């Protein structure tokens, strides 16, 4: 008869961030261990709190299944020697599979007759098997950080202090890290009372409930949410869930009970981001949102119990008051000086050893922002250049603030607050506030174009500086978050539609760094190349996430950073036109033309610049192609001027019949050298022309493209 299995690993309080991934592992590894041991079961689930990791498996078979398999061995002639005794080979093969040589059989195969071992692994009782595999499963759990704490030197996320392992009604006996398994369950620390004995695995959750533990995280989350909402009503505001505090609280508790408290209205003068930080980060309290900003109340969550509720609330309020008075004190100190004065203090803050102080960075970023403004002016992009320069200049000034030293996450937010406090133009204040945007992959960009340019300049300087001194990210290590900064820069250019030459901006950023990092001309070019490749790699993954195919992205790679919004328009067009039946065949023909040119160049063929001479061409097909190219050129110029790549590529696709005809009728590599040169010139013109839209030689045929896509996934 099948039975249910319960394993609980009782630990000292586990960090909140460990819980969900560990429960996932526990479930997977337990199931894998059961399968590997051929022990059947119906279903499995894992549960846990800050103090326990549990897995419950339904319908575990009484015994593991018998495994029989046939293993082919050496050739059959090696069974016995001339003396009639078993050969060493036969004996060895038999022993390896736990058999006597006499039990070996033979099997006929197309390659001849071979020895055969019929290996039978017997079924084993579940209890015995589990006593062996459960400790191994526990040992195999991995944590972001682990420790040693006892003599066996096992490493685990936190010390193991209890093991409850029950199959049906029986204890599964084993020992790990000096702890012997048993049927004892400990309840919620403090209010949970005395430990209980678990008679049968199926009663696990109910027994824990009596001990005031809600072991299922989902159930805990639901209950908490309901109670939080009631507590919020009591506090007179709406819960602020931003930042994952709810999940963290679920992971940090066994029996969460909200407690509503209040603080003095005067602290509402503290800017909202700072107030939220004190509540959420320092105390793990939920802020309550009012009509405008926060209300002077909060919800804290206690682990268990209703006894001493007033005392707990008073404790929460007292601690909060102390923290808020600290925050107000820091704020007051920061407010005594202007952002301009703070800027002057940046000389004392190091940015990066070889790259000097934050003051130097700030000057570079301002100069780069001004350069960008000048570039954008040439493209008639409307911009308040003074504001952009001011944002770039002041962007880092808040790094010397007490509040930012206390809460580094508030960089930018506090700068914006102090800019407003100084009475600076709102455009500047907002730009400073959003200077570090976007802070995450999908998060918001600076709202204004001025803020976007300043933010972009900051990121480009970081990228150029880091690669110039050779601290590019490797593998998963990216200590300066350069990948995120590159992606941020690309998103700003693309989503803010800034027609800015990023390649030139990188060169300018390296030039501005010359005072700090003097690169030789050759090194300068190498670093510029590395920067372009690094940023293009981010662009590629950004486009890839948006659903463009790898070969489509490659087709717009050349000069792709010179005008990113334009690059995206080209990419969209390639992607759209690709559906046209003639497109991929055209790309193939194009690739052929490009290859012929490449080979000709290798052979030292001279190709006249500026295209063929009409009078020198003879065949109707080549004359027709030249005519078509003239027409296409005019069309492309018109479409490109209008930024209409779609129409442009359609015009290119329309060329297909003429091209087919050309290759069918005309021999490019003609005997006559002069004629050959003219034909090559015709192809060169074709390639130049089409490359204005996209490099179609990168486009793969249908099968290849799909294979690549599958490989990429």
């Amino acid at each position, binding site marked *: 008869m099948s039975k249910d299995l319960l394993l609980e690993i009782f630990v*000292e*309080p586990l*960090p*909140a*961030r460990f819980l969900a991934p560990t429960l996932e592992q526990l479930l997977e590894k337990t199931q894998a261990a059961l399968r590997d041991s051929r022990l059947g079961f119906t279903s499995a689930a894992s549960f846990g709190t*800050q103090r326990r990791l549990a897995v419950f498996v339904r319908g575990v078979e009484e015994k593991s299944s018998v495994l029989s398999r046939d293993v082919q061995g050496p050739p059959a002639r090696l069974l016995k020697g001339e003396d009639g005794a078993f050969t060493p080979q036969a004996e060895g093969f038999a022993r390896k599979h736990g058999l006597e040589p006499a039990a070996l059989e033979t099997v006929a195969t197309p390659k001849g007759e071979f020895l055969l071992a019929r290996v039978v692994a017997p079924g084993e009782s579940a209890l015995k098997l589990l006593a062996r595999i459960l400790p191994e499963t526990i040992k195999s759990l991995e944590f972001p*950080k*682990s*420790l*040693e*704490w*006892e*003599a066996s*030197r096992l490493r685990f996320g*936190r*010390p193991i*202090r209890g093991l409850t392992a029950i199959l049906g009604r029986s204890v599964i006996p084993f020992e790990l890290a*000096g*702890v012997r398994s048993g049927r004892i369950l400990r309840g919620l*620390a*403090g*209010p949970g009372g005395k430990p209980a004995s678990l008679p049968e695995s199926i009663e696990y959750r109910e027994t824990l409930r009596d001990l005031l533990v809600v072991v299922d995280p989902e159930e805990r989350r639901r209950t908490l949410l309901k109670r939080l909402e009631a507590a919020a009503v009591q506090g007179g505001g709406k819960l602020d869930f931003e930042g994952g505090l709810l999940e963290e609280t679920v992971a*940090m508790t066994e029996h969460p009970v909200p*407690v509503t408290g209040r603080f003095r209205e005067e602290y509402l003068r503290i800017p909202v981001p700072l107030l939220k930080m004190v509540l959420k980060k320092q*105390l*793990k*309290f939920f802020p309550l949102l009012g009509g405008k900003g926060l209300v002077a109340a909060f919800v*804290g969550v*206690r*682990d268990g*119990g209703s*006894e*001493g509720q007033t*005392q*707990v609330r*008073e*404790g*929460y309020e*007292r*601690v*909060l*008051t*102390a923290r808020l*008075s*600290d925050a107000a*004190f820091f704020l007051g100190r920061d407010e005594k000086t202007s952002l301009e004065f703070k800027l002057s203090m940046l000389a*004392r*803050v*190091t940015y990066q*050893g070889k790259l000097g102080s934050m003051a130097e960075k700030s000057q570079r970023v301002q100069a780069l922002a001004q350069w960008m403004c000048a570039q954008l002016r040439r493209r008639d992009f409307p911009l308040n250049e003074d504001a952009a320069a001011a944002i770039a200049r002041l962007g880092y000034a808040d790094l010397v603030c007490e509040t930012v030293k206390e809460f580094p996450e508030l960089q930018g937010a506090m700068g914006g607050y102090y800019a407003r406090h100084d009475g600076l133009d709102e455009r500047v204040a907002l730009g400073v506030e959003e200077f570090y945007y976007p802070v995450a992959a999908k998060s918001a960009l600076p709202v204004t174009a001025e803020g976007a340019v300043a933010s972009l300049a900051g990121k480009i300087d970081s990228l150029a500086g880091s690669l110039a001194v050779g601290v590019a990210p490797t593998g998963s290590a990216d200590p300066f978050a350069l990948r995120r900064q590159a992606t941020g820069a690309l998103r700003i250019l693309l989503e803010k539609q800034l027609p800015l030459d990023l390649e030139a901006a990188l060169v300018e950023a390296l030039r501005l760094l010359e005072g700090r990092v003097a690169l030789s001309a050759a090194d300068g070019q190498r670093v510029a190349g590395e920067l372009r490749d690094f940023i293009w790699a981010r662009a590629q993954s950004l486009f890839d996430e948006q659903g463009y195919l790898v070969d489509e992205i490659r087709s717009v790679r050349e000069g792709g950073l010179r005008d990113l919004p334009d690059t995206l328009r080209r990419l969209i067009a390639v992607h759209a036109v690709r559906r046209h039946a003639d497109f991929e065949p055209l790309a193939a023909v194009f690739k052929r033309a490009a290859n012929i040119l490449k080979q000709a160049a290798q052979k030292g063929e001279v190709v006249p610049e500026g295209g063929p001479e009409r009078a020198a061409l003879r065949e109707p097909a080549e004359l027709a192609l030249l005519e078509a190219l003239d027409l296409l050129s005019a069309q492309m110029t018109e479409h490109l001027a209008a930024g209409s790549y779609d129409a442009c590529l359609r015009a290119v696709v329309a060329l297909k019949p003429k091209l087919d005809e050309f290759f069918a009728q005309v021999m490019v590599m003609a005997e006559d050298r002069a004629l050959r040169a003219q034909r090559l010139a015709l192809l060169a013109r074709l390639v130049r022309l089409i490359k204005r839209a996209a490099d179609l030689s990168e486009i793969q045929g249908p099968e290849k493209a799909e294979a690549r896509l599958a490989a990429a996934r």
Partner: protein
Amino acid sequence: MLNFQELILELQRFWSRQGCLLIQPYDMEKGAGTFNPATFFGALGPKPTAVAYVEPCRRPADGRYGNNPNRLGKYFQFQVLIKPAPADITGLYVRSLKALGLDHHKHDLRWIEDDWESPTLGASGVGWEVWLDGMEITQFTYFQQMGSLPLFPVSVEITYGLERIAMYLQKKDDVYQLAYNDSVSYGDLYKEQERQFSAYHFEVADAAMLARHFDEYESEGERLAGLKLTLPAYDCVVRVSHLFNVLEARGAISVTERAQYIGRVRGLAKKVMNLYLELGAPAVHQMEPQHV
């Protein structure tokens, strides 16, 4: 309700009953109880130990001239160090709070992940800060490394913030209002000290002299280590560490220098630690626990 000295007495009584040797503070300025040789050396090597002591700690940069009700430039820790860590150590800790009148049933006791690290000692551990109704009252650590070497057997260090606990017990919002005993307040004893030392550390300290002393004690430590005088050499570690703290509060250390200073303290600490392990533990720092 316990006054400050009764609070200390209760903790001493509790941990004494658990078999800890009650030792006295070490007679030098230091930033944390971990610097007491009973912990620094106690955590090293294979021999068991169990000690408890009050340790005055100096954090010059935290001084607020006696004006901030929550921050002190000098305060007291109550420290427990036990090796190897007993299996029921968290339970023992909870019982110690109960001995202070803080019943787990009536309070919110939370264990918040907080791994400890001392860059100057090259030491690190895994553990928590313990929150009592939202207030951090204890740092609880399983030591894992010292001078970048793994520690085995593993010690557990419990550091109680005495002023914080007393403020909670006495329901005071201002540390200087704490009853030290029934007639003398914490402020009576220490407010003037806070004022004067803040002035000294922030405004008056002779940075050039302190920097010179740092250099001198560093060389002296190296010399003593060369002579295999582990304990006096360790005193030099404690001294340079404190000198660094004062220099930093005085604003006399730039960011780059900071890393260098820390590296120098750590270098000396590591040397002393290796010497200690090489020579074998002097008996005085290995206290056999009675019945923990």
